[in-house]
C-alpha cells in the first residue's frame, strides 16, 4: 500500500513556515502534518502516538495555539506559523523555561510524550503566567504520559512559570544597569 501504487494521486508543492524558517515539500493531500514534519522536513521532535487525537504527543503550535499535528493535513498548514518542540529553545541553545523546568523537576522519563507537553505548556503559560496547581492540571489534561506520572509534570508547569518570572526579573535588572 505505498503511494506509488496509486498513480493518479494528487501531489502538491507546499510552503510551510516552521520555527521561523520557510520550508518546501511535495506532498499528497492526505499527508498528515505530523508525518510531513517528521518525514519530509526531518523534524522528528514531534512524536506520534495514537493518530486519533487522544495522546497529545504530536501537539505543535499553529499561529501560537497548540493543535494536534496528527489531526491536520500538511496542505492545510500553509500560510500559518508552525512551532515544533525544536523551535522552543533560543537560537543560542538556552532552553525554554518549560524545557528547563521539566529537566529540573524530573518531568520526564522516556521522553516520548514530552514534546507534546512542552508545546502545550509553553502556550498555556503565555496565556496564564501564574497558574494555580489546579489550572496546571487542567492545562495538561489532554496529554497522556505512560511513565513519569503526572505529579512531576504538574510541578514542572509551576516551576516553568517561576523560571519565566526569574528570567524576566534578571533581564529587567540587567537593563537597569
Amino acid at each position: 500500500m505505498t503511494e506509488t501504487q496509486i498513480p493518479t494521486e494528487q501531489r502538491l508543492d507546499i510552503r510551510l513556515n516552521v520555527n521561523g524558517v520557510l520550508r518546501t515539500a511535495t506532498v499528497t493531500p492526505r499527508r498528515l502534518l505530523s508525518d510531513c514534519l517528521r518525514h519530509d522536513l526531518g523534524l522528528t521532535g514531534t512524536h506520534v502516538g495514537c493518530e486519533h487525537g487522544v495522546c497529545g504527543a504530536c501537539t505543535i503550535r499553529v499561529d501560537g495555539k497548540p493543535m494536534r499535528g496528527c489531526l491536520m493535513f500538511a496542505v492545510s498548514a500553509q500560510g500559518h506559523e508552525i512551532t515544533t518542540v525544536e523551535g522552543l529553545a533560543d537560537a543560542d541553545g538556552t532552553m525554554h523555561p518549560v524545557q528547563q523546568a521539566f529537566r529540573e523537576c524530573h518531568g520526564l522519563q522516556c521522553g516520548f510524550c514530552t514534546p507534546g507537553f512542552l508545546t502545550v505548556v509553553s502556550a498555556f503559560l503565555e496565556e496564564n503566567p501564574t497558574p494555580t496547581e489546579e489550572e496546571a492540571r487542567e492545562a495538561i489534561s489532554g496529554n497522556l504520559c505512560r511513565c513519569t506520572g503526572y505529579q512531576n509534570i504538574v510541578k514542572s508547569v509551576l516551576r516553568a512559570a517561576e523560571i519565566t518570572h526569574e528570567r524576566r526579573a534578571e533581564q529587567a535588572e540587567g537593563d537597569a544597569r
Partner: protein
Amino acid sequence: MKPPAFRYHAPTDLAEALDALDGVGHDGKVLAGGQSLIPMLNMRLAAPAHLVDINGLAELSYVRTDPGGVAVGALARHAEVEADEAAHAVVPLLRQGLRLVAHPVIRNRGTTVGSLAHADPSGEMTAVLALLGGSMTLARKGATRTVAAEDFFLGPLESCIEPGELAVAAYFPRLPGRTGTEFVEIARRHGDYAMCGVAAAVTVDDDLRITSARTAYLSLSPVPLVLDLTDALIGRTADTAEWNDAATLAGASLEPEPDIHATAEYRAQLARVLTVRALRTATERAARVEPNPTAPSTTDERSA
C-alpha cells in the same frame, strides 16, 4: 493509521466552496476542523473521494451576537466561541457546554458548526442547540435554507445536510428573562466524550417560583432528547423544589442503551442524578438573570 487517498479542494471563498461541493456531490465531504473527520480517515472508517477544505473561508470565521442570540459561522473554532464575552452574556449555555467539549487543544481547531454537522449524540453542542431551539443555515449552489434543530438531527452521526450542501452557520437563540442554564456531565476521563450529560434551562417568575423547566440529554438517545419537566417543579423555588420528582419524571422518558462504557441501568442512574444537579444550578442562576433582557427575545414563543 493513515488516511486513504482523496482529491483535495481548497476554495478561498463561499461561492467557490459551494461550486466545489456541487461538483463532487455524493463523493465529497467538507473538511472543517478535522477533529472528528481526520480520526475517522486515519482509522479508515471513512473514505471520501474528495475533501473540500473550508479553512480558507475567512468570511465564515465569526461569532456575531445580537440581543436575540448568537450566530456562529462555520469556521469559528470551539475555543473562539467559548472565549467570546458578548456571546456568553447573551447565551451562557454555550460556554457552559463548550468547556466540556474535549480538551482545549482540540477546541483550538474543532469548529462548533462542524460538531453540529457531525451530529454525534455525545456531542455537547447538539444538546445545546436542541435545548435552545436553535437552527442551522445550510447553503448549496444557488439556494440557502434554515432548518430548526428538531428537524436537523436525523440519527447518530446523521443530519439533514445533503450532498452538495454546506452548513454555513448555527444560530443559538437567547432564552427569556429570569432563565438560568447549566450543563453537567460525567465522563470516564476528564475531556472524554461523556457517558451521560444534561443541559438544563429553568425560568422563574418575580417571586423566584419555577414557571418552566426543561432538560436535554447527551449520549442517551440517537438524536438529542429534550424533556419538559415543568410539571414536577411548577410553583416551587430553589429551596422548596422536590428535585427527585423531576428526576423520576425524566427517568420515565429515558431509554438508555447499554454499551462498552456503561450499562443501561447505570446510564439511567447518571441521568437522574445529573438532571437534579443541572436543574438546581440552573434554578439558582435564574434568580440572578434580569427579568427582561434589554431587547425582546426571539425565543419567547418557543419556551412559553
